[in-house]
């Protein structure tokens, strides 16, 4: 496949507006400004572009939810809070081609009639904050941002807003809270951000990669975009491959290639000639897949059908030498640290899982541990928490326990359970009226 989002990677001075313009940059914005905003939304809807941040929600539909008759300001937010373990694609886009993001942000803002846009970037990305700010300044000088853009009468200011270290702020409502200067606590939905978002106004939050696709849809048309990939799973996608592969990195491929092709051909197979044991298909929030499940197609629907999710496209490859109890403990550490603390099932559950798994790794597993882990996970998933972080730790942990149960049992058999200091409090296993678990 020809490179679309990564076409500038490797070009000299690929970040500058001159290089971007020479490659046909800002033509998408020019075209969009000659159309009605709703026609721009329609074009994106027809392209069947789905959000690249993790949820895979159709982007055009998200835009169309913004109330047309709202009198006050609206906001567009570009989500560059890339923090899902295994994901490093947005950084790649910003590093090589930040103007794609700026142009996509401008087109999306025009489509929803927003005059202010914020790019929320994670606090650790100091270098990439500067790159974006330079690109915005160049675009402003070139007349692509600011007042009366290209004589169209459309005004747009874009600001970069830097986070300060919190995974949860990648969740769109937590991001809005953080943007408003508060602790990053996710909000209850509804109301959805399209109706009540940043500063109480209609707001659309889109991922960096999603917005980077938009200029290409405008210049080359929705049918071209929809011709890449599979029906309902269209367009190019950046896959981040990390872990035990020979060539880790970001690969741009059409949606629908198999994970086998990505891992074996593009990423050069497993390091040291070893065998694949398992992989996370879309960041560690996605249920784990075993080596036997490597022929699944990498797109939203095929992954859902296989009981996992494409998420952000962060593929973490694990070879046969890894111990799955340790992998599980590592994952639990991440979510225990990143839970915002609002909801009990997530705050306590992730911590509890981490404690159990650390104890197992230390060789003090108890026979009831795997079932306890599964019960904690059951109590934290499927809408038991305000935001999906409850599922984000429950799905990988329960899938690792279920798919690699024999490793957990072996670890318990060969270990030495510590004498329990007090009587164990056994979780209730009977019916729970009203909770559905």
């Amino acid at each position, binding site marked *: 496949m020809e490179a679309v989002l990564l076409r500038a990677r490797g070009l000299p001075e690929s970040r500058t507006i001159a290089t971007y313009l020479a490659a046909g940059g800002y033509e998408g914005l020019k075209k969009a400004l000659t159309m009605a905003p709703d026609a721009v939304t329609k074009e994106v809807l027809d392209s069947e572009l789905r959000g690249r941040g993790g949820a895979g929600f159709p982007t055009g539909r998200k835009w169309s939810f913004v109330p047309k008759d709202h009198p006050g300001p609206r906001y567009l937010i570009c989500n560059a809070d890339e*923090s899902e*373990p295994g994901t490093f694609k947005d950084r790649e886009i910003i590093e090589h081609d930040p103007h794609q993001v700026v142009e996509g942000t401008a087109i999306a803002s025009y489509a929803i009639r927003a005059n202010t846009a914020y790019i929320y970037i994670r606090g*650790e990305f100091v270098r990439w904050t500067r790159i974006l700010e330079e690109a915005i300044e160049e675009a402003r000088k070139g007349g692509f941002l600011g007042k009366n853009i290209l004589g169209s009468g459309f005004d747009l200011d874009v600001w970069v807003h830097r986070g300060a270290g919190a995974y949860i702020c990648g969740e769109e409502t937590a991001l809005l809270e953080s943007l408003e200067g508060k602790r990053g606590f996710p909000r209850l939905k509804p109301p959805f951000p399209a109706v009540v978002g940043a500063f109480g106004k209609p707001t659309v939050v889109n991922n960096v990669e999603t917005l980077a696709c938009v200029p290409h849809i405008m210049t080359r048309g929705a049918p071209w975009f929809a011709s890449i990939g599979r029906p309902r799973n269209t367009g190019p996608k950046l896959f981040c491959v990390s872990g035990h592969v020979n060539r880790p*990195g970001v690969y741009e491929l059409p949606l629908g290639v198999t994970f086998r092709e990505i891992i074996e051909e593009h990423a050069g197979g497993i390091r040291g000639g070893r065998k694949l044991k398992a992989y996370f298909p879309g960041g560690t929030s996605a249920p784990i897949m075993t080596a036997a499940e490597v022929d699944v197609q990498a797109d939203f629907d095929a992954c859902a059908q296989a009981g996992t999710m494409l998420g952000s496209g962060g593929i973490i490859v694990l070879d046969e030498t890894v111990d799955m109890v340790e*992998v599980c403990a590592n994952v639990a550490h991440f979510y225990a640290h990143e839970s915002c603390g609002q909801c009990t099932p997530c705050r306590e559950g992730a911590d509890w899982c981490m404690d159990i798994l650390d104890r197992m790794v230390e060789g003090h597993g108890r026979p009831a541990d795997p079932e306890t882990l599964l019960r904690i996970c059951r109590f934290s998933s499927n809408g038991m928490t305000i935001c999906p972080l409850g599922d984000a730790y429950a799905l990988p942990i329960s899938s690792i326990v279920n798919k690699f149960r024999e490793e957990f049992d072996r670890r318990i058999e060969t270990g030495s359970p510590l004498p329990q200091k007090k009587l164990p409090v056994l979780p209730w296993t009977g019916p729970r009226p009203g909770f559905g678990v």
Partner: protein
Amino acid sequence: MSTRPIVAASPDSIAAVTLDARMEERITELLRRYPTTRAAILPVLWLCQERYGWISPGVMRAVASRLGESPAFVEGVVSFYTMYHTRPPARYVLQVCTTLSCAYCGGRALVEHLKGRLGIGFGEKTPDGEFQLMAVQCLGACGDAPVVQINDDYYENLDVTSLDKVLDELAARR
């Protein structure tokens, strides 16, 4: 959830700092970007961390009074995020990624080496105030694992030798 200890602050760090004209100018510029003053808390805290090195109780009070918030609200915000230093940091803060890809691609060896070389554990500073070691979660550079962030900069694809070289260079820098 990250919970951080409340630091017993020295008297001079409790007194509200005075934001000088240059800071004031930058804060005014920041405030233009947002419809509410509260939204400027994070960027103003960043400005203060750049300027004063850390977010002391006095800085929190100054930010609160400048933006019309209570000091408790600002402290609540500061304590939620992991990147604001609530005690004076070392000259170089080493943030070692401990999440999956880094852990399995050499990160654990780096941690062992760093602890040995610096003689400190996670969350500690060397006695000379040069280096501080922190374990952090995913830095978003998994393809170039293992990764260490030193102050604002990413150092990627590290091994013990290359990390040693980086540390030697930093220690020699004046």
